[in-house]
């Protein structure tokens, strides 16, 4: 067994050396106006040799290692969700949702300002993840340009405010509907595409939106972005120290309490939480409705759908439109939270993160996506020193997940329907 693996292990070690020596062993250092090729300190070569040795040993003993790995049982979905049948499970689920909602509502009153702001960001990604879940998880259409609709939502609010003086609450439905319209319009040409082709077209669309925003300087301010976007108000009460819009009052003055800059953060968090719960509720219901069933059926077998009289056009369009609707929603909230947006906030990286949230959480599974949104948003914030390794970390995480739990953290579960027995 060992002898069999020996040549391959040696090859791997040599490859490591071939790759590692020029990349790590040689340094380009500027000297005056010239750039000089210098050899790295000898310690570096020690590390490269050590790395090659580790690769060699790992390849040599791979079978033993993977055997040892498999002894550890995989986490079961039932350890997260109560595995009760029928009605009992539905009640347990409802109680769980209620408990989480109560905890989430109470959180900002105990947590620090930073934690609340982070929680707010998590909630925005929850809305995005759940929205993309309609397109990717339920309808099975790989969308790599989801962030475009997020951008449309955010810029709708920013521009409506800048040019027409719209407030948050007036702009919110318009932003969502505008994003949905973009989803609908994009839906038409991509309907006949499937799989990889669809992914490429949506990827292109996402970039087009960002570049258009970047270049239409006269309208959007281009790379300088748009600032001074007002935060949401509560019954025309602003949360700042001084009134920005002459028609408004101030929260702390109306309530007769002392000004506290935390009020704004907590309020923002709470309304985002309400929107996130709204999203959870609507999408949960959608999945049990005819349109939700049709999305899943289309993902499972398009030909069978057609043979039963379901037109894929309408079903795919509804998935795209509703997914975009929630992205626009999230975008408007994001613009209101940040007060400043620029095309930089809507690059491909954002699309990738949202997609990772959906895949990591478990396609189609709402609980999984909420959990994944929390993990993927909080980890980079908690490990800020490691920021430059973020992509590396994501890649590693995805590879490990694909090996261990290709179906996601908490795979989607079907609710059993109770059947009357005679």
């Amino acid at each position, binding site marked *: 067994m060992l002898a069999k693996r020996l040549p391959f292990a040696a090859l791997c070690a040599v490859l490591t050396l071939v790759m590692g020596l020029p990349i790590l062993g040689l340094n380009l250092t500027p000297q005056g106006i010239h750039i000089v090729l210098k050899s790295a300190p000898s310690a570096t070569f020690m590390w490269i040799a050590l790395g090659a040795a580790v690769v060699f040993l790992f390849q040599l003993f791979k079978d033993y290692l993977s055997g040892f790995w498999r002894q550890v049982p995989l986490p079961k979905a039932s350890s997260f969700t109560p595995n009760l049948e029928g009605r009992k499970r539905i009640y347990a689920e409802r109680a769980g949702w209620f408990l989480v909602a109560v905890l989430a509502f109470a959180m900002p009153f105990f947590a620090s300002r930073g934690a609340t702001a982070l929680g707010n960001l998590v909630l925005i990604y929850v809305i995005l993840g759940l929205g993309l879940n309609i397109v990717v998880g339920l309808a099975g259409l790989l969308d790599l340009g989801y962030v475009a609709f997020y951008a449309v939502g955010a810029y709708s609010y920013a521009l409506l405010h800048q040019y027409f003086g719209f407030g948050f609450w007036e702009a919110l439905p318009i932003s969502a509907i505008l994003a949905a319209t973009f989803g609908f319009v994009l839906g038409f040409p991509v309907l006949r595409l499937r799989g990889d082709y669809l992914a490429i077209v949506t990827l292109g669309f996402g970039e087009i939106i960002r570049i258009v925003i970047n270049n239409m300087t006269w309208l959007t301010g281009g790379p300088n972005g748009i600032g001074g976007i007002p935060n949401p108000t509560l019954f025309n009460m602003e949360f700042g120290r001084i009134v920005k819009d002459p028609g408004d009052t101030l929260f702390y003055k109306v309530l007769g309490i002392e000004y506290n800059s935390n009020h704004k953060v907590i309020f923002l968090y709470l309304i985002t939480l309400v929107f996130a719960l709204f999203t959870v509720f609507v999408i949960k219901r959608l999945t049990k409705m005819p349109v939700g069933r049709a999305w899943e059926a289309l993902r499972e077998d398009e030909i069978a759908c057609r*043979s039963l009289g379901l037109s894929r056009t309408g079903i795919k369009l509804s998935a795209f439109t509703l997914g975009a609707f929630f992205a626009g929603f999230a975008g408007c909230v994001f613009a209101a939270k940040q007060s400043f947006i620029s095309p930089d906030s809507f690059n491909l990286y954002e699309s990738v993160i949202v997609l990772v949230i959906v895949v990591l959480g478990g396609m189609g599974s709402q609980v999984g996506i909420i959990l994944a949104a929390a993990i993927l948003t909080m980890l980079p914030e908690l490990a800020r020193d490691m920021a430059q390794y973020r992509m590396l970390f994501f890649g590693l995480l995805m590879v490990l997940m694909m090996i261990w739990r290709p179906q996601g953290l908490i795979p989607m579960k*079907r609710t059993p329907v109770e059947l009357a027995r005679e």
Partner: protein
Amino acid sequence: MLEVRDLSMRFGGLLAVDGVSLNLNEREIFSIIGPNGAGKTTVFNCISGFYRPTGGEIQFNGHAIHSMPDYRIARLGMVRTFQHVRLFNRMTPLENLMVAQHHQVNTNLFAGLFKTPSYRHREQEAMDRAVYWLKKVNLLELANREAGNLAYGQQRRLEIARCMVTGPKLLMLDEPAAGLNPRETRDLNELIVSLKEDYNVAVLLIEHDMGLVMGISDRIAVINQGRPLAQGTPDEIRCNPDVIKAYLGEE
């Protein structure tokens, strides 16, 4: 109810179907048989709209359907099964049957979000129909399992049930007995006859199991290399020298 006239289908240089004509009456079981690669499934795909025939005409209850998209044909009351079972594997049998009734339920988005009375009512009706057919094909016990995990014979039955909940006038079965054991084939035989007798459905059948075909068919058409070879009652087909030659070869 179904009339196919001079149907032909050409794939590049290959003439897969050439001049096939058949007509189907209400409540009739009509079988298409022929050696492997004779073009039976191609005929099926043309009739159900998956292929657009290169020649000929197809009429179904007064509608010219040879240039209609497949899903519109299905909505006219003509549904089919597939040679390789095509279920919605990760959904439950019950959900499979609910999806099939997409046009009988209330698909209005807001009606569903607010669960209006009309929505609940139509949803309940669809559920009742689904349960009825699950019982009929003996799968009620498995209603909440994943369809992809059912045994092969059960999947075949579920596919037929999924067609029947749409309330079709014509059911097209593409080799429904393939892969079934003799007992399951006997059950299938009974099921098909019952569909015709009790639910007034016409059945168009492709099958290789001669016992099944000869036992239940009212009429049979034989196709060989894309061309019609013979048409008639089971007895006529059994004695037809051309058919015997095509199946067994010449002496």
